[in-house]
């Protein structure tokens, strides 16, 4: 049964917009909404602008992914990024949003929503559509994360199908469980265990990043490594990306966009906690970068640029769940651990699991997304409530609420099981039907020619570096 008091504030926004206007079930031009809430303009402006920043993260993902891969696949990577945002927006409009934020009563409501398809009917309402917009850019983010993990070998047609499945089904249903009044957040046993609130995830370490990262892990696993990535004895071979300039530009764009992602997730500028959220976001990312910089310096002898960029992103992912509920010093700690997670994660995939993740998507989004969920359970300091200044205030292990850490751990396990499990099913189904991987000859020649019949850089003399792969 749903404990109404604890339903995610986002849902409330939708409901309110519908309830305060009993005569008219919807308010497509906003006049009544404005009358009912004089703060609506500043909250709309805040939420939309933050949403625009999140949308811009698509450019960041495209730059990071293309920068860390080879020149012969660049057009394909840019196209995948164009396509997943476009297909994602349409899928989330048609189906995803309804599953995630639609209303449904009883048990069904704990699992998914059932109205609002195509934004038709009552959903043609300024508040509902505000929420749709902000959530749509999040959904597209989850989809685009996968792109990096499967880069340089996935068939473009198959990628499109996977991308639609993610934004239409896999992402929204899990999202419902956390943000739409579903069981992880609102089921009685979770609320009781958590001490007044169920599983939380402020801006989506789990909902967006870990989901994307673990689906990517499944994809990378089923695709197998790029040709030449591992020697016969399993040792990884470096396949350097074609332009660190693009990769770091992408990191900066993502960093910038993340200030829409995290602070914007209040959906309200009237929550002045937004300043603390912004500060926590920057501190965790800085700590992640500095940590990775020093670890790589210590381990490899020289500080590594692309890993440091991953360190920034890892810090950002890790703080995303807890950014509203922890204090600045805790953010620094969370970021430091995120930097370590990046290093260990990349090492694990390369040296132990032998899974080829060209851009580090699994470590950045998957492992650090999971860490972010736990970190919230540990460091929440009781200064802020559930998307509101009112109680119950959220506290974690260090502040005496071990139950909440348990709740978060459950949430993390469910997240992994759902994303990795459905990811395996999805990619396996595609593998044994339409196929998921381009032929070896196409992979060697590059997907730009094979999938799109184009060269990204026709005015430059292109070469592949000749690597030996073993230390001299």
């Amino acid at each position: 049964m749903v404990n109404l008091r604890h339903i995610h504030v986002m849902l409330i926004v939708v409901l309110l917009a519908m309830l305060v206007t009993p005569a008219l079930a919807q308010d497509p031009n906003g006049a009544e909404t404005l009358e009912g809430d004089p703060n609506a303009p500043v909250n709309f402006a805040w939420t939309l602008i933050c949403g625009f920043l999140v949308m811009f993260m698509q450019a960041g993902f495209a730059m990071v992914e293309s920068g860390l891969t080879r020149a012969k696949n660049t057009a394909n990577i840019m196209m995948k990024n164009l396509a997943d945002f476009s297909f994602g927006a349409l899928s989330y409009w048609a189906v995803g949003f309804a599953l995630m934020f639609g209303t449904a009563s009883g048990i069904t409501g704990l699992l998914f929503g059932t109205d609002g398809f195509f934004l038709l009917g009552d959903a043609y309402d300024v508040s509902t559509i505000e929420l749709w917009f902000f959530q749509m850019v999040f959904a597209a983010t989850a989809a685009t994360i996968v792109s990096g993990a499967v880069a340089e070998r996935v068939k473009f047609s198959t990628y499109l199908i996977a991308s639609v499945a993610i934004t239409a089904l896999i992402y929204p249903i899990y999202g419902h469980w956390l943000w739409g009044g579903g069981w992880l957040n609102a089921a009685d046993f979770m609320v009781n265990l958590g001490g007044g609130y169920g599983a939380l995830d402020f801006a989506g370490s789990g909902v967006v990043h870990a989901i994307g990262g673990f689906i990517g892990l499944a994809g990378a696993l089923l695709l197998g490594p790029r040709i030449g990535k591992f020697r016969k004895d399993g040792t990884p071979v470096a396949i350097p990306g074609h332009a660190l300039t693009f990769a770091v530009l992408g990191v900066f764009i993502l960093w910038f966009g993340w200030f829409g992602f995290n602070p914007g997730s209040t959906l309200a500028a009237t929550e002045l906690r937004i300043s603390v959220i912004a500060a926590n976001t920057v501190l965790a990312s800085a700590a992640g970068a500095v940590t990775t910089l020093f670890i790589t310096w210590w381990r490899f002898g020289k500080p590594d640029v692309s890993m440091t960029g991953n360190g920034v992103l890892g810090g950002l992912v890790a703080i995303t769940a807890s950014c509203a509920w922890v204090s600045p010093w805790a953010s620094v700690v969370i970021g430091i651990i995120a930097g370590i997670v990046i290093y260990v994660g990349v090492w694990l995939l390369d040296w132990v699991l032998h899974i080829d993740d060209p851009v580090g998507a699994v470590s950045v989004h998957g492992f650090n997304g999971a860490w972010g969920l736990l970190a919230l359970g540990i460091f929440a300091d009781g200064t802020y409530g559930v998307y509101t200044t009112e109680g119950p205030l959220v506290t974690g292990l260090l502040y005496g609420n071990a139950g909440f850490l348990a709740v978060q751990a459950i949430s993390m396990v469910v997240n992994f099981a759902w994303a990795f499990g459905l990811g395996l099913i999805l990619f396996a189904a595609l593998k044994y039907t339409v196929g998921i991987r381009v032929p070896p000859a196409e992979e060697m020649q590059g997907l730009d020619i094979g999938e799109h019949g184009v060269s990204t850089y026709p005015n430059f003399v292109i070469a592949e570096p000749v690597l030996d792969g073993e230390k001299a």
Partner: protein
Amino acid sequence: MKKIEAIIRTMKFESVKHALESAGFDSMTVTEVKGRGRQKGIVQQWRGAEYVVDLIPKTKIEVVVPDADVEKVIDIIATSAATGQIGDGKIFIAPLEDAIRVRTRERGDTAL
């Protein structure tokens, strides 16, 4: 007429060019190549994996000269390209049968 083909360190190119110039050998054709001789590769790293770029960027200079000038050019290049370290490069001497200046159709040594 011979073609002198020298594969030298990229960072020595400027001084070789100047040395040739000063001696009156202005003409040349230059190509960016990668090579390997006795010199070991450069160890680089990418996301933690070390690897050896075992073909090192080098610059190839081709100068075509009349037979009489061959030894002079060899000497100029060998002198100005040298650092004494492994990787200084090689000079190869190949026979040429003829040369034609496109603009004037002059042939032989006068075309150089």
